[in-house]
């Protein structure tokens, strides 16, 4: 007779993997989008367009924040590997 599957644990793994992956990739993708926006605005800003200058700064700032958040998620992953830093899930 087969041992019943521990559905709760498997569901936890599936949910955590799906959410974490989607979150990190979405953060990085938005970061790239804002970064490209900033690069596009840079060309106009160099011609002295004030609103383009503001747009460039804002987009660049947002992209850096998003990259930092994505990087933070990766650091969290590393901390998960080191035992004792983040308590195990019971």
């Amino acid at each position, binding site marked *: 007779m087969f041992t019943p599957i*521990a559905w709760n644990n498997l569901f936890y793994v*599936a949910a955590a993997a799906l959410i974490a992956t989607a979150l990190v990739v979405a953060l*990085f*993708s938005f970061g790239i*989008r804002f970064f490209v926006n900033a690069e596009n605005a840079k060309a106009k800003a160099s011609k002295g367009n004030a609103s383009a200058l503001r747009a460039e700064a804002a987009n660049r700032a947002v992209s850096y924040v998003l990259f930092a958040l994505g990087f933070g998620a990766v650091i969290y992953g590393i901390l998960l*590997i080191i035992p004792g830093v983040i308590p195990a899930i019971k």
Partner: protein
Amino acid sequence: MDPLVIVGLVVGLALFFDFTNGFHDTANAMATPIATGALKPRTAVLIASVMNLVGALLSTAVATMISVGMINDASALKPEVVFAGLTGAILWNLTTWFLGLPSSSSHALFGGLIGAVVAATGFGAVNFDSILQKIIYPALFAPVVAGLAAWLATRLAYAITARSSDDDLATGRGRFRFGQIFSSSLVALAHGTNDAQKTMGVITLVLVAGGLQADGSHVQLWVVLAAALAIALGTFSGGWRIIRTMGKGLSEVKPAQGLAAEVATAATILASSKLGFALSTTQVASGSIIGSGLGRKGGKVRWNKAGQVVLGWVLTLPAAAIVGAISTAIVLTGSTGIIVDAIITVGVIIAIFQISRRNAVTHKHVSSELEDASEVVETKKQRKAAVKAAAKSSKGGKGKK
């Protein structure tokens, strides 16, 4: 035979298994960044090697748990039996490496040990319930979850970076390569933490069985260092055959897909590790690559190759178990048996390496074969230009006729 000699043989074999584990699994972390051009092949394996070394030194939490749950009677794991089990794992690992199949080194190790224990003491010594719960179910489940996560993440990445205007040259998708450097390093780190510890566990087990270490004591420092170095050296030697399969054989991977696949692999491994599933990083990484291949519009998965890979997964546990069992039958005949088994194993290892040299795959082959895949995702303009060029050439061809 002197028990010290047997223990020495097993330690040497365990470290060699660790080495094969390293070069067999380099692809898990580094196949996609090499395929997308995020990292040069030699740089990639160097980073993977350092990350594996660091990962192996980070923790020894699971090192002493190698047999817990899997074997009912731990005393069945005598040094001779572990020796036989390791030969099964090594020979299967080298066979799949030669065939370029990304099979699981962990499953090869478990299979070899299970086969050896069954041959030595019978089926009663093995806890099949635990094997189902901790190895088989996760093996069926994890690649699917990783594939789903990678598929979803790839869709998201392409949707978020898509440009509605005609002039969509600046999607910036090539920049996903920078993210890949971090995500692939994370996968390599997780691999070092998981897989090197299995070797540490085997060596500790044998040291305890040989009376050289007290039962329940910590993993010795030299064991940690030796296992860390062995897996790092193995990783640095690069399993180019498997990197080729995972980098291009399963699907053509673009930078956004590469990032999605690696993040999915890391997330699945880390979530599973927290619950004590003995996951195969290879199976998870392969599942992620297939998922990311399906996630991109126009992306193709080579199902023929994927089928071969899955067949390799299915066969790993029983094949390593059969070799482990045969090896046990030889080993249990006495000292001569151990020597004969060692000679046969070394002979087969040399034969596999010799045959592999006839069609050697190096980092140079890998980089040239993966060159096409390193191009950034085709833009609308590029597609239009390609269609125009194709139409022009076909008109020219008709005109000539």
